């Protein structure tokens, strides 16, 4: 009996997963930005700023992944780095390059803070977003 119940649960779980998968692959979202664009909205909305958008494509043309993800300590997680302007001005995270020497300085607020207000933190157009987050 117990076994039958657990089998049923498994079947249900698989069915749910399939639905999610199909839903994710078929349902097209209105937004369709660049693959790998990261929206970071940890503090922006509260602070009355537009969320920041990080375009991976633009940066990977210039730097290999390792530079940011190993040397600068960026975790592989959207919004997982708790970046704030203080850290950037101190030369951490984005500020390691965006200091007016390697790249433009953080005074150009709206080049990063360029997202639609209220856009949640996400890896835009990622598989996870399509399957799970559905944002």
């Amino acid at each position, binding site marked *: 009996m117990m076994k039958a119940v657990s089998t049923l649960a498994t079947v249900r779980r698989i069915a749910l997963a399939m639905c999610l998968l199909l839903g994710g692959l078929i349902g097209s979202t209105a937004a369709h*930005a660049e693959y790998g664009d990261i929206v970071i909205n940890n503090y922006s909305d509260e602070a009355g700023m537009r969320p920041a958008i990080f375009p991976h494509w633009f940066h990977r043309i210039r730097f290999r992944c390792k530079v940011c993800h190993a040397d600068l300590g960026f975790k592989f997680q959207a919004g997982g780095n708790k970046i704030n302007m203080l850290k950037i001005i101190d030369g951490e995270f984005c500020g390691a390059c965006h200091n007016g020497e*390697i790249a433009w300085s953080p005074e150009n607020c709206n080049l990063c803070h360029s997202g639609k207000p209220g856009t949640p933190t996400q890896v835009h157009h990622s598989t996870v977003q399509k399957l799970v987050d559905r944002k």
Partner: protein
Amino acid sequence: MLVTIFKRSAQAALLASFSFAAVAADDLAAGKGIYDKACFACHKSGVMGAPKLGVKEDWQVRVDQGRKTLLDHALNGLNSMPARGGNPALSDADITNAVAYMVDAAGLKLDGGAAKAAAAKPVEKKAPVKPVAKAEPKAEPKAKSAPVAAAKPKPTVKFNRLMKSADEWNPPPAEDGIHDPDNEGVVLLQSPREGMQGFAPGISGNRVDWVKTLEAGTINPRFDRLDPTKKPFVMDLNIVREVKGSMPDVVYPHKQHTEWLDCSNCHPDIFVPKKGANQISMAAILLGQKCGVCHGKVAFPVTECKRCHSKSKKSVAFKE
């Protein structure tokens, strides 16, 4: 039925509007503005067979087809040319001006060819009826013959209507759905199509095969933040993972990964550097774990099965 009526009236409206544009003089200066914003991405360098700006031979064949056909292709798309250059926000007049500008730049005239001028005229006559007349269904029978004829040459049929065509990928930031077009900073951002021009084409993600692009030397991203001469420590070691069922086994190449990444990016947090110590499943990858930490986010997604599942199994003789 209702849908067809809608379609027809939409077609009629479109027809009407662009024959109106035909009446108005083409504004070359405005056309240049539109060209610089949208068309240049393909028409400057001739991406995917696009007629190049200033190349007469490219444009002659198009102009020979007549103004109506040329504008119809620009507005509704043809082959690689997306409808309205992929920017639905552009008006009929914008497109007409941009076409006129490009034709002019090739030393040609958009109205060229007497036969075409004649072909365009009947439409112009019909046009004034429609915008005035509110009873569109009435005008419909008249419009019928023209749209059907016009509809034939435009191959809007896609391989799969659920999949985006190549022209819909990599939209400029202002149209990508996450950037705020009201933010003045957005216009300063480089458009991905422009930034990734000439890269090895891919079939998913941002339609770039980054591994090939790097191998070909099209890009040379720094391995060190400050030192452009620093070279990556490339490790050429393939790991073969046998998988269940008839799916080909996975070959994991360290080489392509170490071109971009440092060992510490993956080991030991994501993958324990020991044979047999890592449980990897497609479910985990789809949910953003293991390979899915990058693949499906910034590296090619799981839809490209065979790039990982690349080692076919030896066929086993079937026994009863």
